């Protein structure tokens, strides 16, 4: 599911919060590369307003895994983004869906400031597909 956010069809604009209806099945056991698994899982969490994942939007500044505890460094497109709580809840719910993840700590970060330059090529394609220029 790593490519989930690439070329998302238009209909995902009507997805459930965070794209949770599109989330893949949790892994049955702890993966060999937990950090990569966390990034893949975060790649399935969609922005509440746009059909693009939080990873492709460039909102994830870092991930750290310590046993079953995951730390996520997360930024937002705006300091008063009205979707902050939704995004944090979606990130937390997606990660905690994995049985090997027992705790999620989210740190809000603002350095460096987010700009549209952080959107990945895949994110730009997805946004263009939804009629949003980036």
């Amino acid at each position, binding site marked *: 599911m790593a490519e989930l956010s690439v070329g998302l069809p238009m209909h995902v604009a009507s997805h459930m919060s965070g794209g949770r209806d599109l989330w893949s099945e949790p892994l049955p056991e702890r993966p060999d590369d937990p950090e990569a698994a966390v990034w893949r899982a975060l790649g399935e969490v969609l922005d509440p307003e746009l059909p693009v994942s939080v990873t492709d939007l460039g909102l994830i500044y870092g991930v750290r895994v310590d046993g079953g505890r995951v730390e996520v460094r997360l930024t937002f497109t*705006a*300091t*008063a*983004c*009205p979707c902050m*709580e939704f995004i944090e809840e979606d990130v937390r719910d997606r990660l905690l869906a994995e049985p090997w993840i027992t705790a999620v700590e989210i740190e809000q*970060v*603002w*350095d*460096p*400031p*987010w*700009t549209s330059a952080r959107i990945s090529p895949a994110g730009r394609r997805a946004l263009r597909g939804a009629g949003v220029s980036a």
Partner: protein
Amino acid sequence: MNARDFSPEVREALQRLILSLADTKRMLGIRYSDWLLGAPSIESGIATASMSQDEWGHARLLYAMLKDFGVDPVEVEHSRPPAEYCSASCLDEPFADWAAVVAGVVVVDGTLSLALERFATGAYDAARRRIPKMLAEEAFHRDFGQAWMRRISEGSEEGRQLLAAAVESMLPDVVTCLLPGDDEAELLAGAGVTGQPGDARARLGRRLAEPLAALGMVPAADPPLPGDWIASRRRPAGEPAGDAVERARGDRNRALFVE
């Protein structure tokens, strides 16, 4: 540097600086929102909604810095009486008309941004990490304010007079409150938290020179501290109107509080 790395005197002054910036942003957001409807055009009014959103986002990030000083930001945001607010006094009452809103964007928001720039380039790490995002968002406010200022300056004499009067009433107050030249400002500059207040005032004067010249005005050079200056609140005596503080605190929504 973190809060604990400064001397107790600098820590106290730093805390008051944060509160002054945060409270002014919070009240500015309220004053923009007063004009969400009723502006000269629908689009211009709606723009104040975006600017209100930014101001409150910035205020929240600034209040959160108080945690470094052992202060609960939720308590500060939702429990203080108006008499404890440290916002610039020109925001105590609503902007009287759209000319005052434009003056608020150019003069109050512009001075706030300059004060934040000084803070973001100083020694306090939390300011260095959080303020650049605020300044990026403020670029749109600056463009909006300057475009409106040009429009009014090139319009009717009555409009120019309204705008000039609004600028004249706000500028000395906002320079005094946000770029004070008192002992505390010197203390913060000496600790590397901000630059020298005199330099900032000179820079503000240069920034405002062109838009004010179009109104036949020159920036107030160096307003003195008023006789009723309250050092602990970094503002003259007085307080924001009670209804604005009730909105800011969310008094009527206590039962729905989610933070």
